[in-house]
C-alpha cells in the first residue's frame, strides 16, 4: 500500500499538470451545458443577436415557469412526469424480471435451462431498432399506443441485467443456499431473505444505468405517443423545434433541456452514496 500511496500522491509540477488537464477537460465538457443554462435565463432577442451572452440574464424564473406550465406543445411538467414514470417503470421492471430469471437459471435445474439462458443472451444482439416494427405492431394490436404500459413493457426485458445477476449469483457460495435449506427456507424465502439483500449494490448500480437508459429513450416514445399529453421530455425537446418558418422559442427549449438533465443527475448523485456504502459493506 505504501508504494501505491507514493504513486497517488504526486508532488510538484506533476500534480499541477494533472489538475490542469482535468480542469480543461471539465471545462470542455461543461461549456455547452453552461451555454444552455445561460440561454435559458435570457430573452429571445439576446440569443438571436450575436455574440451570445456568456453570463446569465434576469429571465430565469420567467422562462422556467413558462416551460413548466405551458411549454411549446405540452407543459414540461407533464413531460417530466411521463418520463419519470417510463424511466422508473423500465428500470424497476427490468430489475425485477432479470433478478427472477437469473434466480431461475442459476438455482433451478429444469429441462432446457441452458437453452433458455442462451435465448435470453441472444437477444442482447438485437437492438430495439431491429425489432421495432414488429414490436410496434404488437403494441398497437394490444391497444397500448399512447399509454404508460406501451411505453414501458416492450423495453422491460433485459438480457444484460439477467446476465449480470446470473454472474453475481454464481459467485454466491453454494453452502449459503444449503445452509438456508437446512434452516428451512424455501426457494422464494431464500431469494427474498438472502439473495436480494446480498445483491443490493448490484441492484443500485443497475438502477442508475437503467434509469438513465429509460430516461433517454427517444425513438420508441416518438413512435407510439401521438398525444402531446403522453410525450416524454427527451422526445419533447425535439418536437419543440419549429418546422418551416416559425421562430424557435430558444429560452424555453433550453430551459426544457436543463430540466431534462436534472432527474438523471439527481439519481446518479443519490445512488452514489449507496454505491460507496455498498462497496464498503459488501465484502463477503
Amino acid at each position: 500500500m505504501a508504494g501505491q500511496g507514493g504513486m497517488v500522491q504526486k508532488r510538484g509540477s506533476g500534480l499541477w499538470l494533472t489538475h490542469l488537464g482535468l480542469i480543461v477537460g471539465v471545462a470542455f465538457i461543461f461549456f455547452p451545458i453552461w451555454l444552455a443554462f445561460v440561454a435559458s435565463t435570457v430573452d429571445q432577442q439576446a440569443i438571436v443577436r450575436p455574440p451570445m451572452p456568456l453570463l446569465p440574464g434576469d429571465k430565469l424564473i420567467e422562462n422556467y415557469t413558462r416551460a413548466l406550465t405551458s411549454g411549446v406543445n405540452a407543459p414540461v411538467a407533464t413531460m417530466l412526469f411521463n418520463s419519470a414514470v417510463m424511466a422508473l417503470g423500465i428500470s424497476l421492471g427490468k430489475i425485477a424480471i432479470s433478478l427472477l430469471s437469473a434466480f431461475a437459471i442459476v438455482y433451478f435445474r429444469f429441462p432446457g435451462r441452458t437453452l433458455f439462458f442462451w435465448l435470453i443472451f441472444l437477444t442482447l444482439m438485437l437492438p430495439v431498432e431491429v425489432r421495432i416494427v414488429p414490436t410496434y405492431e404488437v403494441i398497437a394490436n394490444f391497444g397500448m399506443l399512447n399509454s404508460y404500459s406501451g411505453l414501458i413493457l416492450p423495453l422491460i426485458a433485459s438480457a444484460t441485467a439477467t446476465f449480470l445477476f446470473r454472474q453475481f449469483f454464481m459467485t454466491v457460495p453454494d453452502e449459503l443456499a444449503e445452509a438456508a435449506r437446512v434452516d428451512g427456507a424455501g426457494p422464494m424465502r431464500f431469494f427474498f431473505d438472502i439473495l436480494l439483500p446480498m445483491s443490493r449494490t448490484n441492484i443500485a448500480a443497475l438502477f442508475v444505468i437503467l434509469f438513465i437508459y429509460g430516461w433517454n429513450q427517444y425513438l420508441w416514445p416518438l413512435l407510439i405517443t401521438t398525444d402531446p399529453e403522453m410525450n416524454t421530455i427527451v422526445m419533447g425537446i425535439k418536437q419543440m423545434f419549429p418546422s418551416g418558418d416559425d421562430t424557435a422559442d430558444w429560452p424555453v427549449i433550453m430551459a426544457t433541456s436543463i430540466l431534462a438533465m436534472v432527474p438523471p443527475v439527481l439519481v446518479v448523485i443519490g445512488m452514489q452514496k449507496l454505491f460507496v456504502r455498498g462497496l464498503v459493506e459488501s465484502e463477503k
Partner: protein
Amino acid sequence: MATVALENLRKSYGKTEVIHGVDIDIADGEFIVIVGPSGCGKSTLLRMVAGLETVTSGEVRINDRAVNDVEPMDRDIAMVFQNYALYPHMSVFDNMAYGLKIAKVPTDEIKKRVDTAAEILQLEPYLTRRPRELSGGQRQRVAMGRAIVRKPAVFLFDEPLSNLDAKLRVQMRLEIKSLQRDLGVTSLYVTHDQVEAMTLADRMIVMNAGVADQIGKPLDVYSDPATEFVAGFIGSPPTNFLQAKRLGRHIEDGAKIGIRPEHIRLVPQTETDLAGTVVYSEPLGAETLVHLKLLDGQDATVRQDGALPIPAEGETCGLSWEPASEMVFGKGGSRIRS
C-alpha cells in the same frame, strides 16, 4: 436425541458410483468421525445424511424413521459448513435466529435460545455484529451457535476446522468435543485430519475410495487396522510397509508386513539380519524420528524416545521388533490374520 442408521448407502453420479455401500448404526449421543483423504466420498456421505444429496440406493434412518425423501429442515438436523456459510448481511443474532424465525418459534423463545447459545460460545459481545467483522474462530462459533439453537437431534460437521490456523484448530477441537459431551447430541463429523479424528471420535469411519474400510474406536483402529490403507492413513508418521518376500517370509505373492514406527528399535547391526543406512534424523524433543534406507532399497521410519542416542547420518543400524507388533497385509491390501 437420536440414533442414526445408514444401511447399504450408495451414491452414483451418472454411471460412476462414488459411495459403494456404507453400513453403520450410530447410538444416541455418539460422536462419529468420518475420516479419509480428499475424494474418498466422506463429504458426500455426510451430505446424504443432511439431505443435501439424494440417496441412490440404501437407506438413511434418523430415530428409526427413513428420511431418504425428507427435506433437510424436516430431518431434525443441524449442519456446520467448512466455510461457515453465514449470511453476510445479517447480524450474528439474526444468523442464529434465522432458522427459528422460519420455524415460527415465538420471539421471546428465540431470544432466550440465542442468548443461551451465545453464552455457551462466548459470543455475547458480538451479537449485533456482521460476520465479516468477526475473526475466523468467532465465525466458526457463530456457525456452531446456529446449529445449537435449533436443538437438533443430530449435528453434522463438514470439515469445520479446516479454515482455521493450527493453534485455533486445537482449541476449537477441544471446545467442540466438550460441547458435544455437554449437549449429548448425536454427531457426525467429517475431516481429513487424522488427529481430529483420533481425538474427537467415539467411533470413527475410515473411508477409502467410497468404501468404509474400517469402523471402530480410534485406538482399536490404530492398533488393529483392518486394511493396508487404514494402517497407512491413521498414524503419523505412517506405518512402514516392507515386502514380505524381501524379509524372507513366504506368505503370499505381494504380501506386505506393516510395522508402526514406534515398534521398531534400532540395534547394533550384528544383532539382526535387517539393516539400513540412516538418511536423516528429526529430533522433536520428546521423540526422534529416524529415516532409514534399508539395504534392499526400501524406506523405513523409526520413532524412538528422545533420550536415546541419535544415530549419525550415513550410519548403518540394525532394525528389530517384536513379532507380535507385525501386521500382515495381502496383495489386495486386506489384513491377513494368522
